[in-house]
């Protein structure tokens, strides 16, 4: 059975790119447009989501808040969360990890690296 990935990003371009790369690799994709939406979608699709990919800079609820929210959900204490980031300084990554992120994907990503990162965190 193919895995389902939740992508959370306020940029339609990014969501489309992720969906294209993930679909090509055989993943199912569910999408959310910001952290708040992400938590709502996760709640609705909880049983199906195997991996989460999230942006950091988003309106309403940013990536840090979203990750913290996910980790508070007992069903997702160990669900792999990959953070999308263009930040070159490591402080954003550190904050994301403090919030509970599993790993990260540095934008711009290529499909190979993306799938690679998922493989590294998903059983």
């Amino acid at each position, binding site marked *: 059975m*193919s*895995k389902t990935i939740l992508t959370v990003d*306020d*940029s*339609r*371009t*990014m969501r*489309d*790119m992720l*969906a*294209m790369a993930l*679909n*090509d*690799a*055989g*993943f*199912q*994709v*569910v*999408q*959310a*447009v910001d952290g708040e*939406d992400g938590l709502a*979608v996760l709640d*609705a*699709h909880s049983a199906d989501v195997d991996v989460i990919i999230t942006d950091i*800079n*988003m*309106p309403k609820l940013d990536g840090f808040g979203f990750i913290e929210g996910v980790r508070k959900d*007992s069903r997702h*204490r*160990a*669900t*792999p*969360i990959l953070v999308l980031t*263009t930040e*070159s300084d*490591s402080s954003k*990554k*550190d904050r994301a*990890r403090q919030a*509970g*992120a*599993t*790993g*990260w*994907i*540095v*934008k*711009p*990503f*290529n*499909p190979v*690296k993306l*799938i690679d990162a*998922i493989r*590294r*965190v*998903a*059983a």
Partner: protein
Amino acid sequence: MDPLAAIRDTFFQECEEQLAELESGLLAIEEGDHDPERINAVFRAVHSIKGGAGAFGLEALVRFAHVFETALDEMRSGGLAPEDFVLKEMLRAADLLADHVAAARGGPPVDEARSALLAEELAALTGAEVPGEDDEGADFDIPFEVVGFDGPGLLDLPDLPDLGGGGLPDLPDLGGEIPDISALLQSADPIDAGGPRTFVIRLKPTRALYSHGNETALLLRELRRLGETRVSMDASALPLIDALDPSQGYAVWTVELTTSEDLDAVREVFEFVDGHCELDIRPAGAPPAAVLAEAPPAAAPPVFEPAPSERVMSEQVMSEPEAEIDVAALILQAQAAVKDLLGEPDAQAPAPEPAASAPVVPLAPAPTAPAAQAAPPTVTAAPAATIRVDLERVDRLIDLVGELVINQAVLAQRAAESGLARHNDVAMGLDDLEQLTREIQDSVMAIRAQPVKSVFQRMPRLVREVAAAVGKDVRLVTEGENTEVDKTVIERLSDPITHMIRNAIDHGLESPEKRVAAGKPAEGQVKLAAFHRSGRIVIEVSDDGGGINRPRVRDIAASKGLIDPNVPLTDEEIDNLIFLPGFSTASTVSDISGRGVGMDVVKRSINALGGRISISSAPGKGSVFTMSLPLTLAVLDGMVVSAAGQTLIAPLSNIIETLQPKPHEVKPIGPAAWLMSIRDSFVPLIDVGMALGYRTEPVDPANCVALLVEEGATRAALLVDTIQGQRQVVIKSLEANYRHVPGIAAATILGDGRVALILDVDAIVSRRAADYTPAHIAA
């Protein structure tokens, strides 16, 4: 469409939105809105553009966005105060960013020097350095280049490759000879670095590793991808089951990895767990002390002292993926079991690691990354509020609905002609059909309707640029930018509005000195407003400048031979002189509003859209240009009239009222020209039949109907034989199907299937205006 090209389109669409957000956000901050979310939104806009641009390898755009983003980040974190000059700088940067986006989209290239200068200025705001093409920018040389995490920590062992590891595989061949140190060192050079070598990796996961969603088993699986692994686990720290905390890490793993990959590749496996485990990687045979000295663990004490009492619980060579016993798979199974147990707090939770020691567990094949399958559909969980549709499809739909409307009209007329009773089922069904058709038409038209925002949003930049060029202080106020109008109308509004705003700043507003002298604030105001009025969209461009300088306008018009200098003109007539072709008030053709285009061009393009433009001006207080346009170019509410046996349509928007001329109201002023008196004012009376050449002999106006029309500030009465009725007609371009005919705007098809021409009221009125000049009237 190629999916990537489609995403690229999306990207540029999104850029437009982000640029608009950026500009309005910066303007709001400039106005004093220092809400952190406002600054955040501005930051995000630039950040998003940069992110997408990176994905498409748009280097120049990425570079500039990066500098801009850095400055915004500084403002976001409070390090850079949102002072006036900073905001001005950022607004300029926003303009340049828009240029970069346009260039990336295939537009004119950006002036590199200007871009570099602005980037430097931005960087100066924050004290940052501008990344050159060779450093930061180089990351984007390859569109999808990825930069890995490069933080400090346990994995930072830069000296390791020099420790002679490269020579180790050769060791058995040394035949007991003492290895020559220099030979070993040489063998570590890049030429031999590709050969397989062995690393010893020791790993002690902590609780944090698991609580962040990482997994020892996956790390082992990753290592196995690099080469042959030999894994052992020290479970000496494992407590009795009663004391066991399943989310804690107890085991210490030792992996001997023989691989042709280099140390970096091995370290990369542990990238995500840096700091969440105790880790030691060294080439086999390397002196441990040296390594540990090189890499003091940041927080945790080293656990890898020599462990003579090490109790090896499991040791397996895993040289092939199909290995009989797969430790990784075993752990994954155990881990899954633990997860199940964690969900039920009452159940006893076995540790994940001990399960790995069970040698007889049936083996599942190692899970592999999902292979390419038929791409499953993307589930968009958030219900989309909008969809993007190709404009061509909408146009096709509108075309079809137009045909439907005509067809329905034909059907209704046939039914009426066949003598069907009104209450007949068929007739009533046709009534319903008419109602439905009308609703479908309205709904389809609504699809094309868009807020004028897209045009209004371009204006702040224009105002900044023009104001800077003419040295005036200008504030732009916009109103009603959510007013909707057909997309084609919007597209064609941009140029007239641009021109009018240029005009307002260049000619309308006085210089700051003059304003102050006149008791006005030095900063002039230009207002752009849109609203709906009686089924049309009205756009107003107003300024609080000096108003039209009427004596000057009159002089200019006279000197250019546009008017007779001896004829008295009303204020309104003088104001409207600026719409005459060839009129230009600027004594020097300025770079700004000159450009060889006058208000006559604006007027013509508005008229071409079925719109009207007028001006009202108050000396010392300013001027207001008012444009009124139809909401759509596809249908038109028309009055069906006949003249000289022809059926014609007069646009309802032009008609003020209809009158039956009484003989005493009509005053002949020539062989085929009359004036008509309407409530004490005279307007030209134009015989449409003659104006269009359908007849040469004048008719008796008393037997006809007059349509009082208004075109701009000009009024006239159009004489037609009869009025047949009023109806909405679908506009069919005459030019596209035949050619342009003076006095005719377009054509339509009536219910009886005949073609009827739609009158171009403006052309008819202005063509005859020559016959009715004030001079003529006076005579």
